[in-house]
Structure formats: C-alpha cells, structure tokens
C-alpha cells in the first residue's frame, strides 16, 4: 500500500513531477528516453525514477536489455484523500468562525 508521506515527498520535486506527468501522458518509457525528452542526464532520471518507484508512483518492467517505466496513477489517491479531508476540516472551522461572529453581533 502506498504511504501518503512517500507520495507527498516524491511529488515535492519539480523534476519528478515532470517525469511522472510524462509517463502518465505519453505512456511507458525508458530512463534514456525520458532523459532525452526532458533534457536531463540519464543518471538524474534514474535517481528520480527510483524514488517514484519506491513511493509506488512508477512501475518498472524489464524487456530485453531495457527497463521500461510506467506511471502508477492509483498512487495519487492519497492526494485526493488529503484534499477531501482538508476541505471538510475547513468547512467545519469556518462554520465555527461564523458562529462565533454571530455571537458578537
């Protein structure tokens, strides 16, 4: 199961977000291919892919001499859940704020 903290940490970095988005939109790719597309070194891409994979945001598959990576979109469920919870919390807080202001009137 994906740890939300790992996902939040993984997406904190702009390059990783870019890599994830590229995989999500364009489909599976190798580190070499991503490096060319994003104009960064293969080593840097490999490092970021490892972090994305550890966070459950990317899956890898060995095909011949290549390792291909693909995005794991279900990992973003943690983010959706966070947004929904924070939304509910603020609705309750603002209702309490409104109530306290009504008491002043």
């Amino acid at each position, binding site marked *: 199961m994906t740890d939300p*903290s*790992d*996902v*939040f*940490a993984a*997406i*904190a*970095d*702009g390059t990783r*977000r870019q890599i*994830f*988005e590229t995989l*999500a*939109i364009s489909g599976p790719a190798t580190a070499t291919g991503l490096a060319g597309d994003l104009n960064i070194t293969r080593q840097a891409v490999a490092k970021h892919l490892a972090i994305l994979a550890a966070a459950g945001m990317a899956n890898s598959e060995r095909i011949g001499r290549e390792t291909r990576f693909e*995005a794991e*979109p279900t990992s*973003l469920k943690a*983010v*959706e859940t*966070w*947004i*929904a919870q*924070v*939304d509910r*919390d*603020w*609705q*309750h*807080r*603002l*209702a*309490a*704020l*409104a*109530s*306290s*202001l*009504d*008491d*002043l*009137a």
Partner: protein
Amino acid sequence: MENASATTPSADLPEAHIELDLAADFDDVWHALTSDDGLAPWMGEGASIDEPDDLRFPDPVTGRPRRGIIDNIDPNGRLAFSWWPEDDPELITHVAIALQPIDTGTRISVTETLPAADRALRATASMSASASWAWRCAALSVSHLAVHA
C-alpha cells in the same frame, strides 16, 4: 453564514479551497483571525498567534493540536501560515487566508496546499528541526497530474 463553497484544486497545485460569506464586518473577522481571543472560539481555547514563529492551534475540529509559523500577514486582509499537527510534524501544509469586504459583510477564502520543497525547508529551519525530515514533509502540486492519470 451563507454561500459556503468548496472548490477543486487549481491547475498547478494540489489544494483545498473554500470560500464563505460572513455576515460580519471586515475588522471583526480580521480580529477573529489575528488575535488570541478572536481565535479561541473557533480554533480552540489556548489558540495563540502572538508569536509569529510559534503559533498554536488546539483545533477542536480535528482534535489534533497544531503548531505553526507565520509566512505573511497583511492588514489588508491577507494571512498566510504554515502549520502541522503536533503529533506529526511531517504533515506540514501551507494556509493562505484572504478577506474581502462585500455588501453583506466579509468574504473569507481559505486555500491549504501541500508545500513545495523550498517552503517546507524554510519552515523546518524556523522550527530548528533536523533537515532530514523536511524533504519528506514537502509536497506539491498534483491536481493536474490527477487529471491526466
């Protein structure tokens, strides 16, 4: 209270956003946001905003007391702070509150986001905590990714 609305994230950041029209004067709402006695009725008894680097929110809504630091405060109705649950500092987030006078009172909008790494690192420095978890607690911008995924 009226016109509560929760909306979806912006194009760039994963965020929760809510607006509410309050039947109260701008100054009264600002006082409720920026003074200890104003915060107490809705953020919990003992809420404190006097020390910019040591905000305290009992936060009865979640039952998890929070700490925080002021990022920006502007008497024109802008308040921004970073905060986190006392029992889980890794869950640091950024809150931006804006007030706007309207015919019926004051409109308040609240946006809470998962901060990018740079902001989390600044907050961590203010907390004098180890940098090791700062990176972990940072987070970002994924609403557009969620759309595409």
